[in-house]
């Protein structure tokens, strides 16, 4: 998929530049537990300074992949390279990789300070150097005044900061984060997201994060990989994946989407025409599908890209008539569930520009929906 961004921005997007060497490389990595295959032949390149997110549901293999990077699981086949060094067989205590655990795993018998210093105790450094580094790490996560507390005297958010400081103090080449914000409540999660990104930019360490929360992945990640059943379905920057999903699975997994089944009647270099009984109209998408005429395809349109009008629209393409069946009021936006003449229910999102009682659309209203030709996505798989 071609990038949307303009060429000058690509400096911070090394994955578009074939000359940049990847920092972390996975080559055909597989892992099976007995008969169960958790990770299937994954190859992946991650660049220095990235904040890469592995996004997937439970059982998608994302955690197993992370544990293989940390060295807690050995791949059944394949290789893992960091900075051109094959570390596939290295034990976790020799890898230049540190991990922030989902449960934080702070040692309960040590103070915050001792927890943070733990990773440095193995290294031959002077006492004063150790003290300086611990002070730096405490300051980085703003926990200096809690240095002598024990983990059971800290809140969830404070534990998270200590865990982060502890895993950063050895300045690893790669930091792994297992559901880093998973055990924080919603408000704290939103604050911490940006803080984590800021810290990542300050220390310049490559982060790989596992999450099941797509909002978290989209806010924080430079790129993300969508995983399902041990395989990667799509890799890309959050906006690329959202706007250009490569399959029905990804389109439905990331955000919500309207899917129309149809048959290709015209396929040119700059557009495709799809006949869809579900939509009750011809769908015009301004990109090439590169499939034979008569193929079954789906067209995906995001709810916020669908516009609602009370008067018929000019033209016959990408437009349909329907009745509002449900309205989900979310405060900032409302989702309208509109039943088309074919019986299909369509989702359309609209910002609530007016107060609830003053709005123009309500239940059982007859409306017309339409969307711009570049807002549909053709999906062949």
């Amino acid at each position, binding site marked *: 998929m071609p990038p949307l961004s303009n060429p000058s921005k690509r400096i911070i997007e090394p994955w578009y530049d074939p000359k940049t060497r990847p920092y972390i490389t996975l080559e055909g990595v597989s892992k099976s537990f007995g008969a169960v295959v958790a990770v299937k032949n994954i190859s992946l390149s991650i660049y220095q300074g990235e904040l890469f997110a592995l996004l997937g549901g439970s059982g998608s293999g994302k955690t197993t992949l992370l544990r293989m990077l*940390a060295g807690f699981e050995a791949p059944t086949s394949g290789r893992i390279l960091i900075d051109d060094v094959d570390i596939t067989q290295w*034990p976790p*205590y*020799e890898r230049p990789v540190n*991990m922030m655990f989902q449960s934080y795993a702070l040692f309960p*018998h040590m103070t915050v300070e001792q927890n943070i210093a733990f990773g440095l105790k*193995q290294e031959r450094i002077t006492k004063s150097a150790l003290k300086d580094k611990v002070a730096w790490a405490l300051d980085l996560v703003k926990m200096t005044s809690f240095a002598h507390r024990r983990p059971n005297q800290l809140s969830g958010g404070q534990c998270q900061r200590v865990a982060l400081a502890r*895993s950063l103090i050895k300045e690893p080449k790669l930091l792994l984060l297992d559901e880093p914000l998973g055990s924080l409540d919603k408000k704290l999660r939103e604050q911490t997201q940006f803080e984590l990104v800021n810290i990542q930019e300050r220390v310049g360490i490559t982060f790989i994060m596992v999450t099941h929360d797509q909002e978290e992945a989209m806010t924080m990640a430079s790129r993300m990989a969508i995983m399902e059943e041990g395989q990667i379905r799509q890799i890309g920057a959050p906006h690329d994946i959202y706007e250009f999903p490569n399959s029905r699975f990804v389109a439905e997994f990331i955000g919500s989407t309207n899917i129309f089944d149809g048959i290709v009647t015209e396929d040119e270099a700059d557009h495709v025409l799809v006949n869809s009984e579900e939509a009750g109209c011809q769908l015009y998408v301004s990109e090439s599908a590169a499939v034979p005429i008569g193929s079954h395809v789906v067209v995906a349109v995001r709810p916020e890209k669908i516009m609602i009008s009370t008067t018929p629209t000019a033209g016959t393409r990408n437009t349909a008539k329907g009745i509002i069946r449900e309205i989900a009021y979310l405060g900032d936006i409302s989702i309208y569930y509109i039943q088309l003449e074919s019986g299909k229910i369509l989702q359309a999102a609209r910002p609530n520009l007016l107060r609830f009682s003053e709005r123009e659309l309500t239940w059982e209203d007859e409306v017309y929906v339409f969307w711009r030709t570049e807002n549909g996505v053709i999906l062949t798989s």
Partner: protein
Amino acid sequence: MMNLDDTTPLVVPPKKPWHKLRWQERRIVTILPYTWLLIFFFVPFLLVFKISLSEPVLSVPPYQEIFKWMDGILNIHLNLNNYIRMVTDPFYAQGFMTSLIIAAITTFGCLVLGFLIAYAIVCAPRHWRFILLLMVVLPFWTSFLVRVYAWIGILSNTGFLNQLLLYLGIIDEPIQFLYNNFSVTIGIIYCYLPFMILPIYSVLDKIDPVYMEAAYDLGCRPWGAFWRITLPLSMPGILSGCALVFIPALGEFVIPEILGASDSFMMGRIIWIEFFNNRDWPVASTVAIVMLLLFVVPIMISQRRHNQRH
């Protein structure tokens, strides 16, 4: 704006009586064990303490009453000689030392063996653990005396161990294993091992394996992770296991009697001899009291301190 005053008095939570009830219930629950301790520990302790301050006589019971009420005169007859004897007569000091050394060695032996066994059980696959734990407590189904006697069959000059060593050609003539402090130590370690294994096992079992992973991840090798993470986290189990072995080992009577030398006196045997051979109840009581104050009280205080810290 909603008017809060209209809505708040509608629901009044019945907080007070409920709380009071809970508090009373809690009192009853805590009173029970304290009553038990009062009746079966503190009162007998006072009785023994009273006897230790009396003078032995040839009568039933074989000691003089401390308090005598006669014609409006209260006579208090305190005999401190027994306590003075504990300090001046080396026989008792020797006994305390022997008990202390044997109890310390057996506790250490139980700790090393017990920790290894408990660790092995925790590391074993889940379906094996139950069987392994059962094997730890299975000897309790046999009589304690029979189990101690069985060691005579193993350790005696014509016993299994000597036969084996002779057969293998490691020794030319039997070694005297039995009837010395060695056989006593072996016997106590054998009998008290389960009391060390079980508390350590229950603590080790609860340590989240993620702590070990975190230690490895931060560059700790397996041995270092054991010393710095597993061992400190299993301290509560180690301490209660040591208390469970050390305290009864100090006063152990049956094992030294069956497996020990006739001229080696541990506290348990001294108390037995004073009570039943010499019929000197006051001295026997004094030994018991001194032992309690010397060893058990410090252990209880240190345990209490440890509990307060965590």
